[in-house]
């Protein structure tokens, strides 16, 4: 599971050698640790003229987080982050100075630095010039993220439905993108709307008092999700098939939660999950549909069991559980499903898996309004190449290619996926609904 190449080019003699040879040098990504500073250096806030008011508002919020906030690009510091505010841009020509100001500090962007754009979504009825300016940010950000080096990432917040720039979910998303929690999220634009929610009293424990269920929690990404949910304050119900019970018990005991041995494809899985959460822990606030299986085969060679089992576990089980939970009137439920970049870009030998994961994206969008009617949300996370036991079994050459084909030139960790899930599951993210957040280091394929 270790990426020895990334280790080698970042230490000792092999580091020097790699530099001299001009080899690609993926950075050691900074991951979240409680107590570490939010950013690696000062934050520059720039805006076009029309958006200056919003930029001032955001700068004040950042100051409130204890950040070193500056408004002028200077070359006397290593910048921790650049916040590019384009929320009130009217025409494509408006953005020039702010964009170029951003460019002027990129050479002095610190290792693991951040660039975050804030803009508004193009909407029906927008004047063509306004729509052009707003949609332009999309292409700008995705290109910029590919230019960033040394573990720096670029992500965008796209405001929808007239949400204020200091709306709860806007700030929660901004903090996520600025922080080490989003280490492997790169080149993503996340639509964020208004939210009837408060910012957490303690940013390190946004899930305090919440009860979360994670399926497929025995190992890998599921175990990491359980640990991250618990770290952020949630009580975690760990679910996996009875046959995986040994690892499940290990996860549950590591996070101080409970183990529920249950096949998610069981007809009554949703009801049993709800009963367990309510009787043992008093409520159910978050469900993470992580359980998933692979049965790779070219379609020409696909056996019915290989197709059907993947669809049953990866897709039908999520649908049935959601129906049972929402149908039981669970209020404020946060649903986060595991999609995959295979469901976005496709993958040879994975017609079944790709179908199931694209299906997850489909049902997430369709479930979102239903969840919202009960005060909840439904979102998905699409991991790219993640270093797990599963990907460790991919043949060496294929694995090397797969893990380098992204802007960060490395695979992500299970914890990176877990951080994105915890962000979406947190109360302050109520304004993010029906979205698919990719955790892929800006994989070269797909959006």
């Amino acid at each position, binding site marked *: 599971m270790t990426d020895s190449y990334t280790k080698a080019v970042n230490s000792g003699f092999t580091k020097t050698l790699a530099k001299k040879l001009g080899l690609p040098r993926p950075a050691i990504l900074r991951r979240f640790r409680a107590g570490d500073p939010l950013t690696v250096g000062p934050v520059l806030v720039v805006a076009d003229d029309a958006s200056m008011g919003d930029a001032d508002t955001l700068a004040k919020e950042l100051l409130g987080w204890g950040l070193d906030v500056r408004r002028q690009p200077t070359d006397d510091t290593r910048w921790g982050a650049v916040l590019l505010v384009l929320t009130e841009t009217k025409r494509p020509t408006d953005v020039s100075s702010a964009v170029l100001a951003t460019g002027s500090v990129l050479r002095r962007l610190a290792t693991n630095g951040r660039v975050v754009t804030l803009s508004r979504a193009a909407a029906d009825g927008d004047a063509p010039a306004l729509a052009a300016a707003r949609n332009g940010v999309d292409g700008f950000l995705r290109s910029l993220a590919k230019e960033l080096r040394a573990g720096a990432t670029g992500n965008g917040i796209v405001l929808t439905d007239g949400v204020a720039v200091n709306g709860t979910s806007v700030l929660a998303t901004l903090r996520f993108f600025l922080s080490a929690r989003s280490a492997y999220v790169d080149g993503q634009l996340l639509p964020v709307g208004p939210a009837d929610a408060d910012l957490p009293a303690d940013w390190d424990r946004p899930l305090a008092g919440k009860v979360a269920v994670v399926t497929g929690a025995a190992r890998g990404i599921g175990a990491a999700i359980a640990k991250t949910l618990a770290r952020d304050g949630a009580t975690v119900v760990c679910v996996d098939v009875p046959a995986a019970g040994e690892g499940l018990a290990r996860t549950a005991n590591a996070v101080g939660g409970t183990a529920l*041995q249950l096949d998610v494809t069981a007809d009554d899985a949703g009801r049993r999950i709800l009963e367990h959460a309510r009787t043992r822990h008093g409520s159910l606030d978050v469900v993470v549909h992580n359980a998933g299986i692979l049965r790779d085969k070219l379609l020409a060679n696909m056996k019915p069991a290989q197709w059907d089992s993947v669809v049953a576990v990866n897709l039908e089980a999520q649908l049935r559980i959601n129906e049972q939970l929402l149908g039981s009137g669970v209020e404020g439920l946060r649903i986060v499903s595991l999609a995959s970049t295979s469901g976005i870009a496709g993958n040879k030998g994975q017609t079944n898996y790709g179908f199931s994961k694209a299906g997850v994206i489909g049902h997430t969008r369709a479930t979102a309004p239903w969840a919202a009617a009960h005060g909840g949300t439904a979102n998905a996370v699409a991991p790219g190449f993640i270093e797990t036991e599963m990907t460790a079994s991919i043949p060496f050459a294929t694995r090397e290619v797969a893990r380098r084909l992204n802007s960060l030139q490395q695979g992500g960790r299970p914890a990176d996926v877990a951080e994105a899930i915890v962000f979406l599951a947190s109360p302050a993210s109520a304004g993010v609904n029906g979205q698919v957040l990719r955790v892929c280091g800006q994989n070269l394929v797909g959006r």
Partner: protein
Amino acid sequence: MATRKPSDGSSRSASGTPARAANPHAPAGVRDAVIVGGNRIPFSRAGRKYADASNQEMFTAALEGLVARFGLQGERIGEVVGGAVLKHSRDFNLIRESVLGSSLSPQTPAFDLQQACATGLEAAITVANKIRLGQIESGIAGGTDTVSDAPVAVSEGLRRALLDASHAKTLQARLKAFAKVRPSDLKPLTPATDEPRTGLSMGEHQAITTARWGISRAAQDEVALASHQHLAAAWDAGFFDDLVTPFRGLTRDDNLRADTSTEKLAKLKPVFGRGLAEPAEPTMTAGNSTPLTDGASTVLLASAAWAAERDLPVLARLVDAETAAVDFVHGHDGLLMAPVHAVPRLLARNGLALDDFDFFEIHEAFASTVLTTLAAWEDADYCKAELGLDAPLGSVDRERLNVNGSSLAAGHPFAATGGRILATAAKLVAAKAAETGKPARALISICAAGGLGATAVVESV
């Protein structure tokens, strides 16, 4: 709210006074001990998956699964009680060491207890009694055994020499001590489960009893077949989803043969009773006797208040228990007939008859043990002469007997069997009561080496 503080395992219930027991036959001042649930690892035939697993590893694994199921991390349990029949001398604190290796609070006290094959049930009786008396609020009972990792001892001659040498003060004295060792002393002693007073194995003892009661081969094979079929059906129905946690990659009891049949069982050659005098025929085979098995089990018991405070489920109450022993050495009773004596006393004390039970969990040491037990309770002469009853105790409805299989199919890691049976019985009565809306009751009977037996009554709450 979900999180809770690790609690004081010995604190009284909120009211400060123990609640009165629901059982009208319970002594005054005694409250209920309830069964919250259980956890075991799949049982495995000796020398297979757990070949190099120690008792401590297996019991710790069973404990960890229980902790995970009920969210007991950091909890100070009132007492953990359990044991092993085959035990290394280094395992003098086996249960406490297992607790220290678990996610329970290290302030959880524990002790080892041993009553041969009744160890697990005796541990539960002990824990339940402490709870009933208000000495503890919660307790875990269980047991573990490995035949694969059994202790091997040195011969008596070598042991004596080693001890003398360690006490010797001079090199000469030390050499003198070792000089006494004879080549034959170097042969290791493997553990034997033969009865020390008769030199007969348990199987040979039971073969005598089987012959005396005239239990047929076909009847024994029928019991064995039912055990496998019932256990397989229970696994398929998910009955063990919340009773078992896999260990070392094993997810089901590997002695279980779902595909066995009357024909297959009939083909097996008898292994016990081959030396019996005519006209007795040997009838006990590897198919209708339990195999040597490795495994561990645990059961969580508590006061009703303790369980309620933690939002834990309650399956049943451990109502009462009775142990007995028979004089198999000089008397004429069979080695494994002690439960036959214990049950009438247990029923009389609780005002119950066999008909009052929905389930009978009779440990299948051998198929014929179950059958001789049933036959004895139906036999007027035996009941009068040996049990002092005016009439036969009665018949056990075979439809209610070991409905989810027992030791013939699951295997029998000696000390772990009690926990397996108790958790199964508790879940059965809970489900029955939920289904019918009426109280349900189970009778547990476990025979043990040394002419011992332990029995208990479990009732839904």
